[in-house]
């Protein structure tokens, strides 16, 4: 696994908050983000979500 840099850690902390924290209005709302698996278990697993975001950005840029 790639070693985590300080920059990675900052991005992961923020992405973890956006996708995994905040008010959940369960039952009335849906979580739907194209290409991003929102079901993950913590900071280590959110790496896969960041990779997906990177890929989505590359797709949009190309």
């Amino acid at each position, binding site marked *: 696994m790639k070693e*985590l840099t300080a920059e990675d850690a900052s991005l992961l902390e923020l992405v973890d908050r*956006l996708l995994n924290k905040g008010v*959940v209005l369960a039952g*009335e*709302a849906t979580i739907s983000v194209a290409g991003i698996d929102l079901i993950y278990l913590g900071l280590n697993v959110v790496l896969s979500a960041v990779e997906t975001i*990177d890929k989505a950005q590359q797709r949009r840029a190309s």
Partner: protein
Amino acid sequence: MTLIAHAIVAAPPASLSAEGLRGRPLAWSGAATGLGVWSTEWPPEMKLEGPDAMEHHRLVERICAAQPCLPVRFGTSFASVEAARASLDKRAEALHAALARVGGKSEVALTLLWRNPAPAEPIVPAAGPGRRYMEDRRAELMGREAQRARAESLVDRLIAELAIERPLVWHETCTSASVAVSLAVLVPTERALEQKAELTRIASGFRDVISVVNGPWPPYTFARTE
């Protein structure tokens, strides 16, 4: 038209620019219980993408700067204004309580990364494969336990030196091979930069970890109502 929710606030809404995600209209939907939600009007066929998450964050920051707010998890959508209102009314008591707890506050985040991986124990050269496997396994487990104990001691020291109440601190330890501690502190927004400097000062004294301090951010970690 669906709504992509950003933040819950108490009425009346602050005066904000009308621009939401990707320049689409930002709307406030007020419910009967004195709460409302700031959302972007969003065509149902349009998919959210990664960069929208960062824009959501900037919108939540903007809303929280204008009035006390509860950040909503990114990707939360409502089929209509009526659905948004009904959702708020259904949980009004819990949402009002959460708003009273975190409104006007920010969180400062600290990540501690291990400076060096745990050293591997030497393997007995003459040992057979079974013994070597067991020795490796034992060393790995002991290393993990030692790291966890060290991470918890770092958290205790941070809390003690910050002189902050436990309910205002959230933390996890050893969430991956690199991360020793992930911690968030809820602080009054006007004192957030001061607390960030204090957190940076304390964490810089830990020799076995690299500290990364972020924020102040909207109080995502402390906005849960369940």
